[in-house]
């Protein structure tokens, strides 16, 4: 049973360069944690702190309760897959895979057995004598994975391992990765800026911005209950509609329309409303909330059409994802959604405002 724990981890390079500010979390056996965030959010630095390639300014990295801060990367028994794969160009595949074992003076027989094992699992058997430069991108990626797997490490660290693959291959390798790490049953920390990878692979996701965890939750909850405006805007594609609205007597005003505020007796003048394009549809008579407007842009994805709609009486835009066989009038489209699908955020802090069980819902 291994638990990877980070306690108040901080990394400061210069007085105003603090890629990791204060991060605490834990990953259990078999858990797949994804660090998700835009570039520069500190996710790679955090991974390097865990690996021991960087020393934390403050805080601790622990495995099973033991502090690892003073332990060299090679003695932490963690395997890391690099974004560039970092394959040794002058060694062939089998030498690449076995480097860690040879450095630890594992007996030859054992090395051979393990190489055979892992190369069979990843389908690298026929490539063992090739140099990395004679491999395709997908093959190199698998060699990098094999190099991590062969060590049988306590923790797996992966730094954007799919970002150098083309879209089709990425999807396929993503599935393979998921199966592979399910069978390993070890803590996995995975860094990516790709929300699809984060959503599909992880058992939990840490969304990072400016060296701080914005939200740490299972992927589903990140999607349904974004903790703040940043997470709401970052996760989900196409991006969530985020509109800053004026408030007037328990109502948020959008053009000619008013929506009940999430909590009664709110005094703020402004509030941010979030609404996912996929939660909006062509209004039906049963809809509680509707707006009218005109379509000024149509983007066809094949499976759906993304409509950009100017709401009547306002110059703000709502984007709605509509099935292409629905019918609508471009000049005067009527869109609908339900209360439960609305997200509210404090206009100042950006924090999520949970809708109280308001009478609006009851009515």
């Amino acid at each position, binding site marked *: 049973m291994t638990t990877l724990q980070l306690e108040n981890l901080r990394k400061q390079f210069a007085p105003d360069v603090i890629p990791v500010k204060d991060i605490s979390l834990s990953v259990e056996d078999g858990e797949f944690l994804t660090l998700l965030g835009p570039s520069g959010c500190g996710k790679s630095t955090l991974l390097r702190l865990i690996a021991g390639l960087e020393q934390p300014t403050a805080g601790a990295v622990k495995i099973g309760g033991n502090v690892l801060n003073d332990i060299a990367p*090679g003695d932490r028994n963690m395997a890391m897959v690099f974004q560039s794969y*970092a394959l040794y160009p002058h060694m062939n595949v089998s030498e690449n895979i076995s*480097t860690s074992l040879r*450095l630890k003076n594992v007996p030859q027989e054992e090395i051979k057995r393990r190489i055979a094992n892992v190369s069979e699992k990843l389908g690298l058997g026929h490539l063992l004598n090739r140099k990395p430069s004679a491999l395709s991108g997908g093959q190199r990626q698998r060699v990098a994975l094999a190099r991590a797997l062969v060590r049988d490490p306590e923790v797996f660290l992966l730094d954007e391992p799919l970002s150098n693959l083309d879209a089709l291959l990425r999807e396929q390798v993503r599935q393979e990765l998921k199966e592979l790490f399910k069978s390993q049953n070890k803590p996995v920390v995975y860094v990516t800026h790709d929300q699809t990878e984060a959503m599909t692979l992880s058992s939990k996701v840490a969304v990072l911005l400016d060296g701080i965890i914005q939200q740490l939750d299972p992927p589903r909850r990140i999607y349904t209950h974004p903790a703040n405006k940043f997470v709401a805007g970052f996760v989900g594609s196409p991006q969530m509609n985020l509109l800053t609205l004026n408030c007037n007597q328990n109502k948020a005003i959008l053009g000619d329309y008013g929506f009940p505020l999430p909590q009664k007796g709110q005094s703020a003048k402004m509030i941010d409303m979030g609404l996912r394009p996929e939660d909006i549809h062509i209004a039906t008579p049963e809809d509680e909330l509707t707006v009218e407007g005109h379509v000024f842009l149509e983007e066809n994805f094949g499976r759906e059409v993304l409509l950009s709609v100017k709401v009547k009486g306002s110059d703000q835009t709502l984007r709605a994802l509509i099935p292409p066989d629905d019918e609508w009038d471009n000049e005067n489209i009527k869109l609908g959604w339900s209360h439960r699908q609305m997200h509210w955020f404090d206009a100042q802090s950006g924090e999520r405002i949970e809708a109280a069980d308001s009478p609006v819902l009851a009515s």
Partner: protein
Amino acid sequence: MEDGGDGEDGGEQTTTNKQQPANKNQQPTNQQPKMQKDAIRQREQRTGWILITPALLVLALVFAYPIVRAFVLSLFTQNLGTELEPVFSGFTNYVRLFGDGRFWQTFGQTAIFTISSILLELVIGMVFALVLNETFRGRGLARTASLIPWALPTAVMGLAWAWIFNDQYGVVNDLLSRVGFIEDPITWLGDPVRAMIALIFADVWKTTPFIAILLLAGLQSIPQDLYEAHKIDGANPVQSFWSITLPLLTPQMLIALLFRFAQAFGIFDLIQVMTGGGPAGRTEMISNYIYATVRRYLDFGYGAALVVVTFLILIAAVAITAFLLSKTRINVTGER
């Protein structure tokens, strides 16, 4: 450009082969674009030849002509005995060369000088490069400063070293006697072995920066994440040096060795200024011997034969290194 992709293609070869039967039906339509492509390539080749003709002409004038001229001259006897008139004598000069003790002596001395100085330069240059590759305060200044010896004219720094090693007034003797290592001054340049050591020392001092900069460029081309991956694999810095740095630096080391070999084998100015080939010709190098043969003894035919033989030795060395280099390229990057 077209060949560059070969290494990559190796991986996909099996797939392309499989696809070929499917493409066979389309061949008639494929043929025409291919013909056009050949025509374009031909035209490009023609333009290419036209563009490099001026350069080839210059090369022919300054390289090919002197080489051919030297070879022709080496087949003639042209010295004071023939009143400086060329007289055809076939390979007499070459036969004479084989029995020429002074030639073989200078050849041996040149070899000793060349091998010891380039090996020392490689080791010390590697140390310099590793130090200069680390980040520290004032690294830029250190990098520039380390190049100064290399930028000095050899004759000037040769004179300086001659004074430094001077037995009466030299700094070396002064320091050694102050520290108490010696009582009587050492005649550095008056003893065959010590004179050779002094020459090698001066040459190493001057050209180590060149190798250091070459190796530094090589070091900087090694991706940092290879070292990080190796670290995570459990390697210490010494192990990383042997199994990452050294193998990936082989091309630069061979290039440095090649450059330095050609330079050191033809060394002339440093010897001329510091020892004049003495004592008793024991530090005379091939170049100095050739110079003496031609300019002092006015034996042009034999001098040309010496030049031709030295030239061939150098060519052989370059060819061997180039061969090794092409081999390591394959080893290091897998590319051809």
